[in-house]
């Protein structure tokens, strides 16, 4: 019996020390399926550093993991507002840009983003917009405004995003307010608009992951989507088109950051620099098909990328968009109003 106990104990202890303390590893925490796996292999071959790769599906969930498992992650890929929040909570350490020379490849307008003032803590990885994906066989007018999503003509033909921030955000934008509004009156107005949209039977479903496949299958005429999902769907169904409405929209960035508790800081810098190298960034863009912040990669891809307005929108479209900002002081407003929208009958 004693032997069994000793054995159990040693297994337990072994489990506790394997958490990435060894030299020569980098613990990467990224969105699911958000990297070209060949890139990881190449990095391991070139540097001899082993990559421990982990996935998350929600910024909120990721932040809980980073808070509650200190010392577990070296490079994390949060979105803009999450970066802002993590900086405020002291979860991140400044990046030593001397060790990330390839960060110079970042597009001008992303060099000093307002979610990371002074550009100290993050290097952009991918970015994109929020817009309308529509089926040209079901829509015979040019779509230019968010108003199409609220038009009774498209009764039972609209997919909305099952995400309070994005859906309330575009309703705010349609009403002429900021996607970051902290004004209860404006947020309520946006919620009322969405409730009316639902009560009129315009919305077919609120979903996130299922939308792109369903648009490919022709399940609805219009859908609120992220540009990356739009590109995926358009590749599979050429009848689909994507537009960022004239009222403006949300532009989002997923960045690379180093948690303040990262055990392998050196390797984390190497990894971030590697992903910012133009040829590597190109490999990732061509696999993920989101917009890249990397000038070198854009040059390498040439017309195939530059000529695609979904991935490479004109600068005035981008200028018309806003980043999301950390809104935790009004989060309860967004979440409560969202509950009302979801449960409106």
């Amino acid at each position, binding site marked *: 019996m004693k032997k069994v106990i000793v054995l159990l104990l040693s297994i337990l202890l072994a489990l506790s020390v394997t958490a990435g303390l060894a030299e020569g590893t980098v613990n990467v925490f990224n969105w699911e399926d958000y990297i070209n796996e060949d890139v990881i292999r190449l990095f391991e071959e070139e540097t001899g550093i082993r990559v421990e790769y982990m996935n998350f599906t929600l910024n909120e969930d990721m932040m809980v993991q980073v808070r509650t498992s200190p010392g577990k992650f070296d490079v994390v890929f949060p979105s803009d507002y999450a970066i802002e929040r993590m900086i405020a909570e002291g979860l991140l350490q400044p990046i030593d840009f001397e060790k990330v020379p390839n960060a110079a490849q970042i597009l001008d307008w992303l060099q000093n983003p307002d979610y990371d003032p002074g550009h100290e803590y993050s290097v952009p990885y991918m970015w994109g917009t929020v817009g309308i994906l529509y089926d040209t066989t079901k829509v015979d007018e040019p779509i230019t405004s968010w108003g199409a999503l609220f038009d009774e003509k498209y009764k039972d033909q609209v997919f909305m995003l099952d995400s309070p921030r994005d859906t309330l955000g575009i309703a705010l934008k349609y009403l002429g307010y900021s996607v970051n509004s902290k004004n209860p009156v404006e947020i309520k107005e946006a919620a009322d608009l969405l409730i009316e949209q639902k009560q009129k039977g315009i919305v077919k479903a*609120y979903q996130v992951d299922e939308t792109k496949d369903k648009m490919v299958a022709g399940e609805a005429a219009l859908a609120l989507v992220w540009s990356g999902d739009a590109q995926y769907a358009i590749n599979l169904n050429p009848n689909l088109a994507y537009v960022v409405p004239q009222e403006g929209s949300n532009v989002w960035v997923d960045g690379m950051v180093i948690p303040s508790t990262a055990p392998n800081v050196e390797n984390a810098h190497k990894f971030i620099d590697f992903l910012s190298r133009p040829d590597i960034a190109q490999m990732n863009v061509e696999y993920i098909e989101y917009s890249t912040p990397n000038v070198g990669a854009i040059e390498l891809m040439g017309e195939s990328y530059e000529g695609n307005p979904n991935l490479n929108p004109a600068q005035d479209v981008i200028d018309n968009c806003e980043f999301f900002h950390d809104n935790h002081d009004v989060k309860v407003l967004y979440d*409560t109003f969202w*509950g009302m929208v979801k449960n409106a009958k």
Partner: protein
Amino acid sequence: MNNMALPPWASWVMLVGFMGFIGMVAVSIRRNRGVKRSLFAFPYGLWIVLFTLIPLLLIAYYAFTNKTGGFTLDNFKTFWDSNYEMRKQMLDLGVNPQDLGIARGNVNLDTLLYSLWMAFLCTLICLVMGYPAALFMADRSFKLGATLVVLFIIPMWMNFLLRTIAWMSLLEDNGLINTLLAAMGLPKMRLMYNSQAVLLGMVYNYLPFMVFPIYNSLSKQDRRLSEAAMDLGANSALTFLRVTMPLSLPGVVSGITMVFMPSVTTFFIPRVLGGGNTEMFGDLIERTFLSADNWNVGSALSLIMMVLILISLTLLRKADPEGEGSGTL
């Protein structure tokens, strides 16, 4: 939220203590022949305390505290009035919620009532569908009974998420059923993005849990009882009503328990088959914990759920005091 966490070594001390304890009990059972047999339940008792009771206490702790760890009942007020927290926040922002017409909110309560109603319907349909199935399977003249039980289990070995997604590909507007209808020249039907589709997905997932216990209690029945009834002149319908059915009631009660309980907190199915148009209580708890990142209100909702379930359990216990039907297979 983490300021209350124990130091890292504490968990290891607890685990080591736990393992050591099990070891001691095992050793004493081996050495001391006078040891009481009831001590065999000891490891389990400890397990329950560590992995069921303490986690429940943690839920209770979060439910009765606010973000800074102070005692509060606000989380329960938020259950009763879903706008409660929001109104407080608005006042902090200097806006009077009354000016905006924000009164008491029914969202959480409505979601609970809707979930109970859906769970009730699901249980009813499962019972109506499952009882005859169990009855026919338990029929002595039907030799395949045992094999059929296996056939009822196998679908549960396919991943639950994939099974639900498979229903989606059947029910979509351009899904298999509608494609078939269209090929036959019939009009397409709206089969999903509504409550009926959610109900279908629930019945599909929980039906086996109704069939097993009923089958179990029916197949255990002494056949001579119904034969005696027939000999005494009862026809088969009367025999069923007065003998077979009453004797199978414990199985029915346990079937109802096993279907109703998980039905109330169904999640994922409403999102996939209902198009996220109406939430059930499971979705609400998940959204509150993960997306809204509000562990306190999420815990309060979970606690309310638990209490409701314990109450219904006690009521059902009265109907089946021996727990006879609960042998599952």
